[in-house]
């Protein structure tokens, strides 16, 4: 039986995972792959394969220690991310520049607000929009009745609008205005 060796290796994995998990917020990609910043592309692939053999979540599919399993999963995702970035010369260059400024992870700058739908998107009439906004303000102030009134006004400006209807129905349910069948 190779029990002691297995045990040793398990402890080694645990120590590595704990170290890398604790470093998720400050360790550079190089640490996750276990290489130096001067590593050649060949080294990077080799290092990734070594890490994958050690840390891939599939290896710990049946591990009963759920906390450790979760840590392994989080660490492995970063290992794979490190490989993905460092493997591409262009991305690696971008990463190294960021790293010099203290950014340990490559996250591209986002354009703000662009990804969101306006809450009043889908409402055509300016009047309906205005009352709808007032309704939202009332809702924010926890004034359900006021909100209901404003949304109902909005709906009368633009009858049949699904966005407004949904708000009205929601409030009617909350205020118990709707008669329940049966």
């Amino acid at each position, binding site marked *: 039986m190779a029990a002691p060796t297995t045990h040793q290796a398990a402890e080694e994995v645990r120590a590595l995972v704990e170290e890398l998990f604790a470093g998720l917020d400050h360790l550079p990609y190089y640490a996750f792959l276990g290489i130096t910043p001067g590593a050649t592309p060949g080294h990077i692939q080799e290092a990734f394969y070594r890490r994958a053999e050690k840390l891939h979540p599939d290896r710990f599919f049946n591990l009963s220690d759920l906390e450790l399993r979760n840590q392994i999963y989080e660490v492995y995702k970063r290992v794979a991310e490190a490989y993905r970035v460092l493997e591409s010369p262009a991305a690696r260059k971008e990463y190294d520049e960021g790293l010099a400024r203290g950014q340990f992870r490559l996250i591209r700058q986002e354009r703000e607000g662009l*990804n969101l739908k306006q809450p009043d998107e889908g409402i055509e009439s300016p009047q309906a929009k205005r009352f709808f906004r007032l309704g939202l303000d009332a809702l924010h102030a926890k004034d359900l009745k006021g909100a209901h009134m404003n949304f109902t006004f909005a709906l009368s400006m633009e009858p049949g609008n699904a966005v407004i209807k949904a708000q009205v129905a929601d409030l009617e349910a909350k205020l118990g205005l709707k008669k329940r069948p049966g």
Partner: protein
Amino acid sequence: MSAPIVLGIDLGTSNSVGAVMQGDRIIIVPDAEGNRIHPSVVSFHPSGNVICGHKAKARRIVDPENTVFSTKRLIGRRFSSPEVRAVRARAPYVIKEGPSEQPMIATRGGEFTVPQVGAIVLNYLKQLAEVHLGQPVAHAVVTVPANFNDGQREATKAAGRLAGLEVLRILNEPTAAALAYGYGKSLQSRIAIFDFGGGTFDITILRLQQRIFEVLATAGDTYLGGDDIDLRLVDAMIQAFLTVHGIDLRQAPLAVQRLRAVAEQVKCQLSDRARAMVRVQEIAHGQGGAALDFSFSLTRDGMNAKVVDIVDRAFVVCDEALRLAGTDVSQIDDMVLVGGTTKMPLVRDRVRQYFGKEPRADINPDEVVAVGAAIQGATLMQDVGAGERPKALLLDVTPRALGVATVGGYADTIIQRNAQVPIEQNRIFTTSADHQTQVVIQVCQGESRRFDENTALGELKLEGLRAARRGEVRIVVTFEIDTDGILRVKAKDEETGNTQGATIHVLGTMTEAEIQAAMPQDAGGRAPGQE
């Protein structure tokens, strides 16, 4: 204590195969007649019995309205999608719209969601395995085409659960094939898996380094399969009959159904011989009600000429996969052929021409995927002695880009196509209106710049945001694709660290509540029977 048995299942459009690994031995699960591949067909018999496999396939001709097939083309698809419309136009069984925009199949046995029909096939394989092995089987690895999207994967997983199986992994079919090919061989090579099945075509390029199987790229065409070849032959037959008898068989769904079976026969015969001849009795009635038979003869060259354009579409996809993998065709050391359509000599010839070498001939294209699934199942169950090296390690990719809707109808890519899984990408969202307490983010799969040219997956809703001036609330949304290729989403308020509720409702498949309600032996759920 030995690890539990894991059933590897290739749930195919036309046929399904089950395999298990016992020790180092692979067993393909046979039915009572000894068949190793089982038609993915479910027939609802007038007696109330539900029939599966070969016996069900035989009922396609006598009871077409209640014999359901090719449902893999429907799985995870919205009722309004072109895919569902295409199946509805051809299928002799009734497809209706059900809840969550999913297609429902109406038969004399009742109405079923697509995962429920899939569950019947999976349960059939489970039972065959249990009978053959003489022990219960509760775990499975189920394969899907590499280009299956999130909804299709979720729906397949749901089918497994409804069949009473714990699905350990949703595995890409070509990756499974690669595993079956390279397992235990300690190879160092680049291979191409050319997977031409009944309903879809996939090509996957892998780098093998001893036990590591790294997928470099995968590409596919979900509209390309052996069924298209059958349909082309059916068209030819209909045309021939029209010319001779002046009768359009298209008006007779039953006749078309019979011709489909004949077309498949002709195609298979022409794999072994140069000429096929078939005679179909009483296909139609002529003047005065006289029964008309139909004779049809076709040479292999004749068939090839009719379908070569279909086959050649596969190589456009191959070009793309090689480009994505950064690999030249000359760097491919070996090609593995998967799927029934690769048995056609025309396909083999074209593969040989394209890759400039002979494809592997020692691999059974019908069984290789299920074998790979069984190997993956056994590997996952391998005892986690951390000192032991894994027998095989799959490093797979996500076949599609994941994006979100932005203003003006555009899509912003969040996760690139062919990125290795598991993967996570963060994106910061800010509110765009004062007091905005909820946001809806539309999520899609695909690479097009325009949102509506991609496949809409569903909407991600973030609720309970801090009410503040617009732009003040910054939410970090983490999009994650797990090892099953399934999307998970987390959201966190950057300033407060509060985690937001983030749910994604994937359209075209069953909701969790619907699955729970449909679970057969779920102790917590209501029993479907009434007393």
